[in-house]
């Protein structure tokens, strides 16, 4: 009996998984919206306001605010940078005490518990970057019902669960920027692979879905080899990227979908001696990529400025609490960033994705 069980297990394990790699069926079943192939990011959509509203919020204009920032997780460079932006804005405003706290793993259940505890503690405002847009909604709605101002950044929640969302860049804009940069480096018929965090991380899943749509539309001859997961660990990302390099003789480019995967991918290319032969394009912080960009291993790093993102989110929070930013507004002033546009009803756009290259990467330090 034991031997039969063994045989069944071994055979089923080999059969179970064989499927066509490539292609992407992940994401959240939402429609994709690929941008036009030439030209810039295109006009942002405008919709009526669809955010939520706090119930019986006390008059906070001009008063001191206690704000808590609860990102997806603490302890990674990206959210250290947004946290710094939030702290910078709080210092500049002078009337806000801001604190960053959150789970040590990207876990929605823990994040919900954190938010709930701060609701009980009684804060004036909650800034968040959600691990899951739907799962976080009930606790955010609870915050709204207690008169707390709720503003999101980086990773959104269902619109009615928060008042505003500061969007670093549109999903389709990022997809376009990444693919166009990759096509420039490896050509219109190059083969590429993707290293992402997990297939359930909402932002990454949406970006990849948009990349799939945009690639079909504007770079149909590029070959999409496969997509692998590497969580938020740089050693795992390195190992996965190395395996991809070893497996595909025709691999010309690697996309890194997280600020951890991209430098790890560049390191994998570098240690395999394929600098210049395999392109690495992805999202990353400039500091992590400086060694590779300066060596010529990586030509372009796509990102927005996460410090600016946090900074903008805090200014939006102050404006919302003061009542100067109301539903229906078309723009909001965010300190030194100037006027930011409102798109999609209740989103505030930071700006187009920023491309770091050898020429400009030295000017940044985060």
């Amino acid at each position, binding site marked *: 009996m034991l031997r039969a*069980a063994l045989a069944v297990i071994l055979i089923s394990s080999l059969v179970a998984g064989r499927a066509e790699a490539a292609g992407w069926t992940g994401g959240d079943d939402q429609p994709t919206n690929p941008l036009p192939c030439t030209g810039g990011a295109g006009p942002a959509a405008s919709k009526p306001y669809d955010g939520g509203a706090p119930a019986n919020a006390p008059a906070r204009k001009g008063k001191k605010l206690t704000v808590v920032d609860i990102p997806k997780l603490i302890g990674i460079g990206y959210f250290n940078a947004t946290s710094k932006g939030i702290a910078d804005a709080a210092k500049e405003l002078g009337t806000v005490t801001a604190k960053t*706290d959150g789970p*040590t793993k990207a876990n929605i*259940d823990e994040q919900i518990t954190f938010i709930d*505890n701060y609701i*009980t503690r*009684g804060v004036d405002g909650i800034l968040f970057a959600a691990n*899951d847009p739907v*799962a976080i909604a009930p606790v955010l709605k609870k915050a709204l019902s207690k008169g707390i101002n709720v503003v999101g950044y980086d990773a959104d929640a269902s619109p009615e669960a928060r008042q505003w969302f500061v969007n670093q860049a549109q999903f389709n804009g990022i997809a376009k920027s990444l693919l166009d940069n990759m096509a420039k480096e490896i050509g219109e018929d190059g083969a590429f692979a993707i290293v992402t965090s997990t297939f*359930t991380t909402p932002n990454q899943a949406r970006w990849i879905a948009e990349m799939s749509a945009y690639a079909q539309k504007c770079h149909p001859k590029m070959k999409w080899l496969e997509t692998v997961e590497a969580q938020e660990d740089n050693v795992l990302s390195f190992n996965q990227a190395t395996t991809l390099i070893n497996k595909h003789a025709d691999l010309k480019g690697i996309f890194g979908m997280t600020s951890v995967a991209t430098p790890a991918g560049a390191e994998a290319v570098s240690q395999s001696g394929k600098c210049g032969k395999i392109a690495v394009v992805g999202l990353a912080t400039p500091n992590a990529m400086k060694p590779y960009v300066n060596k010529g291993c990586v030509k372009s790093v796509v990102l927005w400025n996460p410090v600016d993102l946090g900074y903008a989110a805090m200014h939006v929070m102050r404006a919302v609490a003061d009542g100067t930013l109301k539903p229906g507004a078309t723009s909001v002033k965010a300190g030194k960033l100037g006027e930011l546009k409102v798109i999609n009803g209740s989103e505030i756009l930071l700006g187009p994705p920023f491309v770091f290259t050898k020429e400009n990467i030295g000017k940044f330090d985060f």
Partner: protein
Amino acid sequence: MRLDARTLLRHETVLAALVVVTFVVLANQSDRFFTAANLLNQGRFMAEVGLVALTMTFVIVTGGIDLSVGSILGFAAILVGVLWKKAGLPLPVAMGLAVGAAGVAGLTNGLIITRFKVPPLIATLATLALFRGLAEGISESRSVRGYPEWFYTLGQGEAAGVPVQVWVLAGAALVAAFVLERTTFGRATYVTGASETAARFSGVAVDRTKLLVYTASGLAAGLAAVILVSRVSTTRSDMGTGLELDVITAVVLGGTSIFGGKGTIAGTLLGLVLIQALRNGLALAGVKGDGTIVVIGAVLILTILVSNLFGRGGDG
């Protein structure tokens, strides 16, 4: 219960005293801690870990362990969504089947352990990967959302002012305590853990006992999964990750011996309450997330240390 030195120094009593002290200290640090609203709310967050901890008590008392409960929870959670959305089954049927599948998962653990004699740590280490993998594979990492309103009452609703899942947990705790301490099955569980050989020689159906406790462990994870999906209104294949460590911490804190043969439901409940109180109270007092887990780790070690120091005289 006689009120002598032996009873006073039992682990559960030490733990109860610790819980009281903790409540007092935390209430001092923040006036939002010791309010009915907050405590009931914490009960809501406790329910999933609590249900699984009840059955884990049985498992550990038999001298075994189940590391796969978190994965079984994720597996059942995904099934709720997939069976309802993809297979088009009515939601109550999907819920029932998901819990049933979780029970089958637990039964599989039990079979691997009893039929193939694989030690529980290894068996459930393997199934931890397997069930999580099934959850990821079946769901293809998509979430299922948009459930009907009545579904949310389980996780987000109240009955007589108390969250629904707290009633479920309370009921389950009563049943578990009754079974463990007052039925022959409960005694069989203790005997199996104390000495399996002696149990077999006394005619106790050791294998059947084990099969039942591991199946129960799976069922509890399945029920917790349904409650969790209802509480967060969506399914994710990573749900329940790390649950097994929280559960084992609560059970061990509660005085259940990892070697088997000793443990009570009351102890487990106290352990649960202590951990939840610490998580909540410390956060309200302004301690950040990383500080809280350090405290919980230290409390775990210190509580067992103190309990050992006191208990040595009793049962050496």
